[in-house]
């Protein structure tokens, strides 16, 4: 069979149509998320500025609204510096791996009923796997840069990410028991029977563990030791400049958005809200995600950085037993009720 016969065979058109729809979905999701990433950086500076009685960015456009575009343009045209002793292939792929892992997780997030790029049955597992994969980007960049700061930053970050990943994975087991599924769409549907259409009341312990672990997973304050400016300059991406740095930065913010989405979907009922908002099916998810992103800024403006031993102690000695307790309690309630 020739190439054209394959293309025009019955059924092939359907497949191509499906692929086209999926590509459009991917383009929409990536476009929207990238816009959010750009403006998340702006609002972070603005919100923290106002919390510290400053103005934040004001110069570029009205109240600095064009600042992200200016930043992006600047980073885009910046020279790409590769240190002389760097391990070049690894240095090249590290930011791409970071971004790839972050972007891939977006594929399984349902933004509203029926709108999800890939409706995987193992949605949660996929996101956890991708967030582990993100640690590779960090380790590789820390190692390949051949600098002391990035080496230490990479080590710290990898140890932190894997420690909190255990707690995060365990905190989601309670949700899985309640929903009987790892598919994020099914999880949202399972929550409709609960008060306020959310798992947060029966799962408040899991929610607490998840939120703390999410802050640590995304390297945000108060757990931003890998990037502690005052001791490590910028941690694992000290040696990166221009667009490569931007890729790391984007990966970090996409990670934030994914964690916010996951928290909204698993514990706060996703696109369902206390009442219906007409015509905008994703309104509730958007509100919840914005709330979580605001929470990131709020905590950053409020809480000082942890010490490394405190960080590890919190992860291993507090969160893991709490998560196991949560699993046991959830299972027990499920058996008894």
């Amino acid at each position: 069979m020739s190439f054209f016969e394959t293309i025009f065979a019955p059924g092939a058109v359907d497949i191509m149509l499906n692929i086209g729809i999926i590509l459009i979905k991917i383009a929409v999701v990536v476009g929207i998320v990238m816009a959010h990433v750009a403006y998340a950086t702006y609002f972070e500076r603005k919100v923290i500025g106002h919390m510290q009685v400053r103005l934040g960015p004001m110069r570029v456009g009205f109240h600095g609204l064009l600042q992200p575009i200016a930043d992006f343009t600047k980073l885009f045209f910046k020279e790409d510096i590769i240190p002389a002793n760097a391990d070049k292939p690894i240095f090249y792929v590290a930011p791409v791996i970071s971004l790839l892992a972050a972007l891939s997780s977006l594929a399984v997030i349902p933004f509203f009923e029926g709108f999800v790029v890939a409706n995987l049955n193992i949605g949660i597992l996929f996101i956890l796997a991708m967030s582990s994969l993100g640690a590779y980007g960090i380790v590789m960049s820390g190692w390949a840069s051949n600098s002391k700061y990035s080496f230490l930053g990479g080590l710290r970050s990898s140890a932190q990410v894997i420690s909190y990943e255990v707690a995060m994975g365990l905190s989601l087991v309670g949700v899985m028991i309640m929903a009987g599924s790892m598919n994020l769409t099914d999880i949202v549907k399972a929550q409709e029977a609960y008060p306020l259409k959310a798992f947060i009341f029966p799962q408040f312990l899991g929610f607490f563990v998840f939120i703390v672990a999410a802050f640590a997973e995304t390297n945000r304050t108060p757990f931003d030791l890998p990037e502690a400016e005052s001791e490590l300059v910028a941690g694992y991406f000290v040696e990166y400049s221009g667009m490569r740095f931007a890729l790391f930065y984007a990966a970090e913010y996409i990670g934030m958005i994914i964690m916010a989405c996951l928290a909204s979907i698993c514990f706060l009922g996703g696109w369902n809200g206390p009442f219906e908002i007409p015509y905008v099916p994703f309104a509730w998810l958007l509100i919840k995600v914005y709330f979580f992103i605001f929470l990131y800024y709020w905590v950053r403006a409020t809480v000082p950085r942890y010490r490394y031993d405190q960080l590890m102690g919190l992860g291993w000695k507090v969160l893991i037993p709490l998560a196991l307790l949560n699993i046991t309690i959830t299972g027990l309630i499920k058996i008894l009720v």
Partner: protein
Amino acid sequence: MLIAGAFGLGALIVGSIFRPRRPYAEKLTPYESGNPPVGEPRYRFSVKFYIIAMLFVIFDVEAVFLYPWAVVFEKIGLYAFIEMIIFIVILFAGYIYAWRKDAFKWD
């Protein structure tokens, strides 16, 4: 699954297209506050990191064991619940052992 793969590949291509290809032949030494770098950057580091890595492997595998159990929880009922409690208790014994051996202590 295919979509996820395509998605990852898409991200990779996007990442490589966006990068400016104007490499200068400028060599920069690793950043050390403007001083010339001292000594070997990849020096020996604390053994604690290895312990954390090993504990992570153990606990993560345990978490993976819990996932399928959690998903089919409603169908398998009390018997499997008790089994899993026994599993968690055994694991918790190991956890307490690691704690008593100061595996989580950091200094």
